């Protein structure tokens, strides 16, 4: 009777695992949001949701402290800036303008002017991406609260991203800065269309597919295009132009965007109960 050599048995086990993994990858890529793999992911997400709530409340002060240590340089700079702003605010207060300005600022935060008549669901950010190469956040609202895959997510300043998975109690939002994210946008001044693509550098985007002859100005506002079939309603602020240049020999301009929403400081967001046509 033939006996399998240990090496060939090892290779058979490894080959079996690789075939299984490739089958799973293919299955996951081919199926839609309601397929078997998506359902397993959603069940997992709901199962860990209560643990996540508990862990989050315990860890919050520790992670805040850790962030303070890691980002001490940045915090010092921010502190200096805040001191300067405080000094300016004191001057304003003396002339009675501070209260008025604060009132305007709070109104801006509460007022999602760009949303219009669309219904929204407020959600709390309860987690960030598990992997090193995703730029996502997890919300404490899911399909039980009306959240569905594809819905846009905003804060007072503008667009944050869109829902990419939604279980009963949780949903995951792909941020604008994720490398997979692409938003159809319009430059406010010239009305030119383009696509704002996320970058691996996390806190900026690039504007691509823009007519090379268009004059783009630094500081110009970029809003969602809202063209037919777009993933987002039109007119939502997305970013401002941070830098415009052209690499030698390149046809397209290199346009770097700074998102209007601070992706690193998201706490409460609003999910727009809006889905793209056909979505």
């Amino acid at each position, binding site marked *: 009777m033939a006996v399998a050599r240990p090496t060939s048995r090892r290779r058979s086990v490894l080959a079996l695992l690789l075939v299984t*993994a490739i089958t799973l990858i293919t299955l996951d890529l081919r199926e839609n949001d309601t397929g078997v793999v998506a359902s397993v992911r959603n069940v997992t997400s709901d199962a860990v949701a209560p643990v996540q709530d508990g862990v989050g409340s315990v860890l919050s002060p520790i992670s805040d402290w850790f962030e303070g240590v890691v980002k001490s340089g940045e915090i010092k700079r921010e502190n200096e800036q805040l001191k300067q702003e405080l000094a300016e605010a004191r001057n304003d207060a003396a002339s009675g303008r501070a209260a008025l300005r604060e009132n305007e600022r709070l109104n801006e935060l509460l007022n999602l002017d760009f949303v219009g008549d669309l219904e929204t669901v407020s959600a709390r950010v309860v987690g960030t991406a*598990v992997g090193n190469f*995703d730029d996502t956040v997890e919300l404490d609202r899911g399909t039980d609260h009306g959240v569905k895959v594809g819905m846009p997510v905003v804060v007072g300043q503008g667009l944050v991203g869109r829902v990419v998975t939604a279980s009963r109690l949780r949903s995951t939002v792909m941020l604008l800065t994720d490398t997979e994210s692409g938003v159809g946008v319009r430059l406010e001044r010239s009305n030119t269309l383009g696509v704002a693509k996320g970058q691996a550098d996390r806190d900026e985007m690039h504007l691509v597919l823009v007519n090379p002859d268009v004059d783009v100005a630094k500081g110009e506002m970029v809003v969602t295009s809202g063209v037919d079939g777009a993933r987002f309603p039109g007119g939502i602020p997305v970013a401002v132009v941070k830098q415009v240049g052209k690499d030698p020999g390149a046809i397209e301009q290199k346009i770097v965007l700074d998102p209007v929403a601070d992706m690193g400081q998201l706490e409460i967001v609003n999910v727009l109960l809006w889905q793209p046509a056909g979505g």
Partner: protein
Amino acid sequence: MLRVGALLVSGVLIQALVLPEFRVLGATPDLVLVIVLAIAFREEPEFAAVSGFVGGILIDLFLRTPLGVSAIVYALASYAVAVLHTGILRPTRGLVPLIGFFGGLSVGAAYLVLSSLAGYEGLLTMGTAQVLLVASLLDGAIALVVFPLVGKALGEDRTAVTA
């Protein structure tokens, strides 16, 4: 078997719920990978590959990339470490952070390439390379703690790490 399962599930829960809150330059260590490498350091290649596969599938449930990508790279890395340590390497304490670092680096690179082949854009950039490097350094650092803990949890001394 039960202990390995418990180790993997605990690792996945810590990876998914705790570690994302503690990022250094945008990176977190890959605890599940380091656990499967530590298991591979003490087990036969077949068992190591299966442990890596299961650990990869569990962590894939929390990632955006297709289910199975981490499973492939973890299984291959675990198999390679188990084959190396049974045939070539003598396990020493100095080797542990190197296994963590190079394991993290090669698995991360393979993960990025496979995900890109699966159609995920923008992953092969200088930005991701920087995050990968920091994450690998963190993997090497936590390996110093994780390897002995895994050894104790498995309760065996088949290939004890020597000084």
